[in-house]
């Protein structure tokens, strides 16, 4: 008897329904659920059991659907989030509490988290935080920092009703306006939107860091594989075979022509029907590699005689940055105390749980790309060049984005998909494999930093020099931005009259380094904030008071010579930490007296970050309209990648227009429907797009009030009767029907643009790079296991000057998430090309690694910000890593200068510091 099920049906119960699938032998349950049964709420992040996003319940037990052959589920009861939400009372409570706590940011891990939580709540009523951590430990999240998830599950288990939300006005916490689909499993991400008959595309990538290559018989290959519809190479690119993000640095080929510069460089794409591509092995593709010696380190690339990787970049130096004021060397020479140090950081992977995914199709003579992105209009710009098509023939419809953190600003699969759709005339889809996203998409730049800082005996800073080399990898991406931003920020938020900072971005044969939350500033802060502690110690000063003494203030010039008359909030952030600082030092002293092999320490660090592009225009435009039925529609194109712009921008608009936010109808990002709100990057959306939303709200309000000649402080009301205006004792109901709608269907329509006022930097970096900065200061308590070198953060206190919190819980969410990423950068994250290309060799923090975080929201309003608001996203992880390093030093006397502070490195430093 042959019981092979190859052609057989596998039957099981899916969310209460009997289903049957004709799956391939050994097909992953996750694939069958998504592709054969439409259960797109099962998310795939790694296909290796490392991320847990695909968690489903099989006979009540949570398992990774990516690790179970569908045949093994035969006869079993399989439950996914959408089914649980309909039928399980625990899931119902979790839907409520996850929204109330904003426990879902991007939402890609949320199904895995919630399914795991349902299993816990079924087995354990009212679990505590530790039980929640154990139960959810198998699901990775890169956005939230996990603490809000823990809170949400504990609350759902306890059966408490969530706290009521605020009004929605600026300054009040409301649930995310786009939050419900994230917690019910219906949100559509990049891999969830392709039509069922879409062709599938796979990219052929270099396995070598540096190689020449030749193709074999491509026509023969295609002929031998009837299911393969097209093979694309550089010869098939009608326009410019290159992409990039900065004019003058458009250097990365869509398809390499005859040589590759990093492991992961694309050389060809294969497009075929789904069944064929499921059986396609890239190893069968006819290409021959001739490996060349790779330049993996900056010193290799700078060495005399090293191969030059790009024309015009002698010694592989791509570009540099420079800021100088006063006379740094003279100041250091006269300083009473100086410290110096060399600091090294490594490649850091963004680690979003959603790999790049999407599809493209033709709509008449237009190509439409639906994919996850942080920058739809920049995607359109890139495709115009690559496809040699005018803007109006390219439409970008972003899907929900399962995390980005900078890497999804650059195009990834969009050119491949668009080329393939044009070539085949069919819908073509693609999802990066985890290895592929880790190999081929941008990383945080490794930095090698030398820094000297001086001070006079009274504790005032006296001279600072900074030299940083950044490994920018094979292609430019955002390397020039890192090179420019770092010298502007490397002083930290302090008064430094005599300063010189110089950077170089150096090409190597590593994966391209690009934008990652903070654009190089987290790396420079590691050096500067570590040296500040050493300097304070040499001066015999308290580390926090030393920072407060030197903090920037209103009327005090930055190292760029920019003087802010208002809005400088670093001192209030540092001062907010004073009570926790004193208490933590006392706690650590008590603990350390009683313990020999474990030592506790407390560290602080501060940071600042300029919001928006550096001395470059970066306008945002917001459009809004009033329909004849009285509906106010906001066209909101600022990509929400989990940070919350889909909620913040409407809150600002609603305040400006003068109605409750829930009365506004929203249209999300789509290049056909929403004007350019710029990229979600540079902590600019709340500030820049927020201002555009404010202006648009004000303009539409003015237009409405103008219809009835009402005074500026009249009250607008939207209800079922339409739009009424109350002006003192008078009430007007607008007769909108008498106005003729424009082609977009609006009787009144506005579009407003905001671009932050900046001034160019001169050759010494003097000027006005940003219209506003945001400020931060973190405190962390760590415990160090002395014999093992294991460091465990115990709690954080994070003070952030956000000018005006538009939605305070969203602020906390950014703070928590940034701290988790900073913690990972400090303690565990190291991307090594060729070696850590998965999520079990490359470690990001789990739910067990992030301790409680207390967020102190400081509001020093900024004159340029909408209602005083400042940007926040990137600021958060700037102080985290140096605060941890300072806490380790406080606990043990050991100073870590190379990240990450893995147990082995910490142990070596402890021994050097004299610990047994």
């Amino acid at each position, binding site marked *: 008897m*042959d*019981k*092979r*099920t*190859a052609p057989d049906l596998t039957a099981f119960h899916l969310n209460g329904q009997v289903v049957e699938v004709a799956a*391939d*032998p*050994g097909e*992953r349950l996750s694939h069958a659920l998504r592709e054969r049964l439409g259960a797109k709420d099962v998310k795939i992040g790694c*296909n*290796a*059991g*490392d991320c*847990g996003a695909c*968690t489903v319940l*099989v006979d009540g*037990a*949570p*398992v*990774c659907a*990516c*690790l*179970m*052959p569908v*045949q*093994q589920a035969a006869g079993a009861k399989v439950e996914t989030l959408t089914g649980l939400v309909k039928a399980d009372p625990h899931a119902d409570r979790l839907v409520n509490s996850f929204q109330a706590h904003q426990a879902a940011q991007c939402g890609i891990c949320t199904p895995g988290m919630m399914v*795991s939580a349902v*299993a816990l709540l079924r087995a354990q009523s009212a679990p505590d935080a530790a039980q929640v*951590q154990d*139960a959810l*430990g*198998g*699901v*990775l999240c890169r956005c939230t920092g996990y603490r809000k998830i823990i809170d949400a599950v504990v609350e759902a288990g306890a059966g408490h009703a969530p706290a009521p939300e605020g009004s929605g006005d600026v300054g009040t916490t409301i649930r995310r306006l786009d939050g419900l689909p994230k917690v019910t499993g219906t949100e559509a991400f990049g891999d969830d939107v392709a039509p069922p008959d879409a062709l599938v595309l796979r990219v052929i990538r270099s396995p070598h860091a540096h190689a020449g290559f030749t193709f074999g018989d491509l026509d023969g290959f295609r002929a031998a594989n009837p299911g393969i519809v097209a093979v694309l190479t550089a010869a098939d690119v009608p326009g410019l075979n290159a992409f990039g993000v900065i004019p003058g640095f458009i250097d990365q080929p869509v398809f390499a022509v005859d040589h590759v510069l990093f492991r992961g460089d694309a050389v060809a794409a294969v497009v075929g029907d789904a069944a064929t591509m*499921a*059986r396609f*092995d890239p190893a069968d593709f006819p290409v021959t590699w001739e490996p060349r010696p790779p330049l993996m380190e900056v010193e290799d690339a700078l060495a005399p005689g090293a191969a030059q990787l790009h024309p015009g970049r002698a010694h592989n130096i791509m570009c540099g940055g420079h800021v100088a004021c006063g006379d740094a060397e003279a100041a250091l020479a006269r300083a009473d105390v100086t410290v110096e140090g060399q600091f090294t950081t490594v490649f850091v992977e963004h680690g979003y749980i959603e790999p790049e995914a999407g599809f493209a199709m033709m709509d008449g003579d237009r190509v439409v790309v639906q994919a996850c992105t942080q920058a739809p209009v920049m995607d359109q710009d890139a495709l115009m060049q690559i496809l040699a098509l005018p803007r109006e023939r390219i439409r970008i419809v972003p899907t929900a984005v399962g995390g980005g953190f900078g890497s999804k600003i650059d195009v990834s699969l969009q050119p491949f998909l668009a080329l393939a759709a044009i070539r085949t005339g069919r819908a073509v889809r693609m999802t990066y*494999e985890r*290895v592929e996203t880790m190999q081929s998409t941008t990383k945080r730049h490794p930095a090698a930093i030398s820094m000297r800082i001086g001070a006079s005996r009274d504790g005032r800073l006296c001279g600072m020099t900074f030299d940083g080399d950044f490994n920018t990898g094979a292609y430019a991406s955002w390397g020039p931005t890192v090179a420019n931003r770092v010298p502007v920020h490397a002083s930290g938020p302090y008064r430094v009259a005599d300063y010189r900072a110089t950077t170089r971005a150096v090409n190597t044969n590593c994966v391209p380094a690009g934008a990652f939350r903070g654009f190089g500033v987290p790396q420079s802060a590691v050096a500067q904030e570590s040296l500040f502690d050493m300097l304070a110690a040499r001066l015999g000063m308290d580390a926090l008071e030393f920072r407060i003494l030197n903090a920037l203030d209103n009327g005090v010039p930055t190292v760029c010579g920019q003087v802010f008359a208002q809005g400088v909030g670093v001192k209030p952030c540092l001062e907010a930490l004073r009570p926790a600082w004193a208490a933590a030092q006392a706690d650590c002293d008590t603990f350390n007296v009683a313990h020999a092999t474990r030592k506790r320490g407390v560290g602080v660090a501060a940071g600042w970050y300029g919001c928006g592009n550096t001395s470059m225009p970066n306008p945002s435009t917001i459009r809004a309209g009033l329909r004849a039925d009285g509906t106010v529609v906001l066209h909101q194109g600022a990509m929400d990648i989990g940070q919350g712009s889909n909620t913040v921008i409407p809150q600002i608009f609603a305040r400006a227009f003068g109605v409750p936010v829930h009365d506004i109808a929203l249209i999300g990002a789509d290049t056909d429907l929403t004007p350019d709100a710029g990229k979600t990057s540079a902590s600019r959306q709340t500030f820049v797009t927020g201002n555009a939303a404010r202006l648009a709200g004000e303009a539409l309000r003015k237009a409405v009030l103008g219809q009835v000649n009402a005074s500026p402080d009249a009250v607008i009301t939207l209800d079922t009767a339409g739009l009424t205006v109350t002006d003192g004792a008078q009430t007007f109901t607008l007769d909108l029907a008498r106005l003729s709608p424009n082609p977009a269907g609006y009787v009144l329509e506005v579009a407003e643009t905001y671009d932050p006022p900046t001034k160019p930097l001169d050759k010494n970096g003097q000027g006005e790079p940003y219209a506003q900065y945001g400020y931060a200061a973190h405190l962390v308590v760590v415990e160090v296991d002395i*014999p*093992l*070198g294991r460091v465990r953060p115990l709690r954080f206190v994070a003070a952030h000057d956000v000018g005006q919190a538009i939605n305070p819980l969203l602020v906390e969410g950014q703070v928590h998430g940034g701290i988790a990423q900073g913690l990972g950068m400090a*303690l*565990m994250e*190291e991307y*090594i090309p060729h070696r*850590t290309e998965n999520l*079990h*060799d490359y*470690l990001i*923090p*789990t*739910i*067990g*690694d992030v301790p409680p975080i207390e967020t102190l929201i400081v509001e020093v309003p900024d004159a340029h910000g909408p209602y005083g608001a400042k940007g926040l996203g990137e600021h958060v992880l700037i102080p985290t890593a140096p605060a941890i390093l300072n806490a380790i030093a406080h606990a043990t006397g050991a100073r870590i200068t190379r990240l990450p502070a*893995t*147990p*082995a490195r910490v*142990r*070596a430093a402890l021994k050097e510091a004299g610990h047994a």
Partner: protein
Amino acid sequence: MGYLVAASLSEALDALGRPDAAVIAGGTDWFPAQGSRPLKGDLVDITRVPGLRGITQDAGGWRIGGATTWTDLIRADLPPAFDGIKAAAREVGSIQIQNAGTVAGNLCNASPAADGVPPLLTLGAVVELASTRGIRRMGLSEFLKGPRQTARMPGEVLTALIIPDLPVGAQGTFLKLGARHYLVISIAMVAALVTLDRGRIVQAAVAVGSCSATAQRLPALEADLTGRSAADVLAAGAGVILPAHLAPLAPIGDVRGSADYRMEAASTLCARALHMAIEQGGQSHG
């Protein structure tokens, strides 16, 4: 190319006699190793073979069936000697992995960092291998030949682990060192099994993982411990471990830690695991 859900052991063994046939159980190592490459050959699923899943006790000791999951092990009512393997089970990946992955699969995968191996070595586990040629048994250390290498022949299934009866009062412990909580491959790990009698160690077994090609018992340490007073061992602190005790270890340096660090961490973990075993054993058995 096919997928067979074996209804009996003999059916599984017959199917595995075909070329390119592979065993699949929990799938937690099989799928990551396969990646997105297309399947070539047959898969033989042994998870529904009657009698292959679960833990039983008979005259010869304890028998952990080849399809027993980590969660099955965690939930089984077992004596304190099994506390170490249970602690290891809770550290295997995540609950999702523990619910699907099998103890036997962890051994067959033969990672130097396999969480199950050190505690099973301290328990003196014997593996049972079945094929159409019959059944054979061997000690776990003999079964593990090297990284990703075992004595399992083509066509064989690891049908059970047999743990010989242990002294009453034997206490197992396990410590795993990684760079994060949950979902982590260890830098080093140690299992200890200690039996106390009136304040003296009458039997000790210590094994270290991730510090050699396969996890190793430390016979010199075990010999030194035997007969010593538990109080002395506790008082000696980390000094209870001497460099010579660690001679069987030959750690490598990799992304998780240097060789020197691993050696030092192993020593620290050995002392801590022994102390835990003594303290817990002392509490349970006076």
